[in-house]
């Protein structure tokens, strides 16, 4: 069993990071007990704000010797309870390790500490004429958190996900040992990819202390198209045709009128068009206006043939802001529209998106709850939200459980997976286990044991 944090442990932690960055009891803000979604909550025994890899190493040596559980937390923007210290112990916050250390223009890489925010990295890259392609909606998430969940985002259709941009990781193992996995190289055929095991492991295998990330040259031109459809069915059905057209948009997002209206009321800002029931938002990027215009026209013509009512051109900074700021606020806007919500981040094969969305509408009617959704139509990753509204505690728990069961079963039936980009964390473990079955889960547990035989790093998450 785990040891409780003692006064001697606190003194040791203070000696490592300084007194001001070791907090206990009421000095810890209650927000540290949870992430962005309800359902699981637990205060840590001690909150430690770290500044360097060496500090993390010393803390892990202490925790390992004393068998104290350690949970790593970035900005706390997760959606599955992965950063909640369910066994108490030490909550290790990385937000003070927020330096962009090096830009290597020869190898097109940037070296960052884990507490750098996604928006800071994106702005830094752009200032230097580069693009860091992963583009999850939550821009105030840390890069450490993005790597830990293998976050995807809106540009995944063309550019892939976080995993595709991690060249190497410097990590601290549960026993305090510092190791670097991977290298700043383009190819790697050198044994098992330990770096790739760390990516998406949600802080259960090692603590990310430094990351070398790949950049690409910043595309010179970028234009979006907002395409209105009379209904969600025709909007979603257009997506496979767009993908088959061989023009590769950077992003293909779908959104319903309802969700847009939530966002309008949340932001206090009107969206450029709300006359239609369903929209697809696409982005095209490239190095010349002609090339981008050609791609855009091919897709716009195709959409019009497939029943789109128009295709609105989003080509200036102001227009992009008016559309994308609303898209970026969808999660918070839906959250603000209800008393409580829970989410399902399934990913299904691209041609099954329509079937899955229709199924969520049927569930909403059957269970008499609101289930708004939005998501990445181009890569099959959907964000579906069950809204509690006026349900009682008991009704909320039973309804939510019943709907989740049905949705995850449907995703399995359609060839999908439990999570596209938010992770498994605490909340989705049973759904993942149910889908994978005993052997894959046993392999995951085995990997966890090899890294962390004392099970002190983020225990009770992902596969346990």
């Amino acid at each position: 069993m785990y040891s409780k944090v003692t006064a001697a442990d606190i003194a040791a932690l203070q000696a490592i990071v300084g007194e001001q960055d070791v907090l206990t009891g009421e000095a810890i803000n209650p927000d540290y007990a949870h992430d962005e979604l309800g359902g699981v909550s637990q205060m840590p025994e001690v909150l430690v704000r770290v500044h360097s890899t060496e500090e993390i190493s010393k803390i892990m040596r202490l925790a390992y010797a004393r068998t104290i559980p350690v949970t790593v937390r970035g900005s706390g923007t997760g959606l599955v309870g992965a950063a909640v210290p369910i066994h108490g112990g030490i909550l290790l916050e990385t937000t003070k390790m927020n330096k962009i250390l090096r830009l290597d223009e020869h190898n097109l890489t940037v070296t960052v500490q884990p507490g750098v925010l996604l928006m800071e990295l994106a702005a830094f890259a752009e200032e230097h004429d580069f693009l860091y392609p992963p583009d999850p909606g939550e821009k105030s998430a840390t890069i450490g958190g993005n790597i830990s969940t293998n976050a995807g985002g809106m540009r995944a259709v063309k550019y892939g996900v976080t995993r595709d941009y991690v060249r190497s990781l410097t990590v601290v193992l549960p026993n305090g040992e510092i190791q670097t996995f991977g290298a700043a190289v383009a190819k790697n055929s050198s044994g098992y990819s330990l770096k790739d095991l760390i990516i998406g492991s949600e802080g259960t295998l090692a603590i990310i202390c430094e990351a070398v990330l790949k950049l690409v040259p910043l595309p010179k031109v970028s234009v979006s198209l907002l395409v209105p459809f009379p209904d969600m069915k025709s909007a979603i059905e257009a997506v496979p045709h767009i993908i088959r057209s061989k023009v590769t948009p950077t992003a293909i997002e779908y959104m319903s009128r309802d969700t847009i209206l939530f966002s309008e009321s949340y932001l206090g800002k009107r969206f450029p068009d709300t006359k239609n029931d369903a929209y697809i938002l696409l982005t095209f990027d490239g190095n010349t206006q002609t090339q981008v215009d050609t791609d855009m026209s091919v897709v716009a013509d195709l959409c019009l043939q497939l029943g789109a009512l128009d295709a609105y051109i989003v080509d200036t900074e102001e227009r992009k802001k008016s559309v994308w700021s609303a898209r970026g606020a969808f999660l918070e806007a839906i959250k603000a529209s209800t008393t409580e919500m829970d989410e399902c981040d399934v990913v299904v094969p691209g041609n099954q998106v329509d079937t899955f969305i229709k199924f969520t509408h049927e569930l909403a009617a059957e269970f008499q709850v609101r289930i708004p959704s939005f998501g990445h139509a181009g890569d099959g990753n959907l964000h579906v939200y069950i809204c509690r509204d006026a349900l009682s505690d008991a009704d909320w728990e039973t309804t939510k459980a019943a709907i989740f069961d049905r949705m995850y079963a449907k995703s399995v039936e359609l060839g999908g997976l439990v999570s596209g980009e938010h992770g498994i964390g605490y909340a989705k473990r049973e759904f993942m286990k149910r889908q994978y079955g005993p052997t894959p889960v046993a392999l995951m547990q085995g990997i966890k044991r090899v890294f962390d035989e004392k099970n002190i790093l983020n225990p009770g998450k992902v596969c346990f």
Partner: protein
Amino acid sequence: MKILVCVKQVPGSNNVEVDPVTGVLKRSGIPSKINPYDLYAIETALTLAERFGGTVQTLTMGPPQAKAVILETVCMGASHGTVLTDRKFAGADVLATAYTISQGIRKCGDFDLILCGKQTTDGDTAQVGAEVAEYLALPNVSNVLSIEDCREGKLFLTASLDDRIVTQSVRLPCLISVDGDINTPRLPSYKIRKSLKEEDAVRFLTFADFDDQDPDHYGLTGSATQVERIFPPEKVAQKHTLQGDAAQQADQLYRLLLDKKML
């Protein structure tokens, strides 16, 4: 209601550099766009026409390639537009620009309402609208925030006078300049862009089409002011660190935001 919206083509990026030696904007290789403030005027015009009935056309002054912004306004819903273009118009200051535009408007017909944006993002003078009204002897209201009604030959509107808000009526015909951020401008339609015929959508007027044929009233020679030097504004970044405990810092932050009129 017959509405005309004045628009301008400006550099597509907000970060256009000024050549420190010549003082000229480095426009080469930089794409152009409609002045963002004019989009609010276009949206206001299209909304008014939908609400009270009417037509919307647009007008710009600039080189022939400024037709791009007229085509864009047509894609947003205007019926057609006019480009005032002539080498004689080049180098105009705000006064000569306003005069040229007023001459152009006279040749486009009679309008119940002329709409302008608050200012441009390249010149930032915010004077042309009011001066056009003066040349056309029309009542003028600037910084209009909303138009509540149109009846009995009048517009009922709200405008900002910086330290106060006025609600007033103004008789038609008139010229108003709308404030920024008062609506969300609609997006240009690909469907219209694909179907429009350029010759129907844009017409060009030159010096030869105008009533006043005195070349000294236009361009550089018609300008009352001369630009001596253009230079980028000094960029000042200040860092202010708040001291004290959380409550004291929150209080200081509140006062700071209040002082800066951000609350």
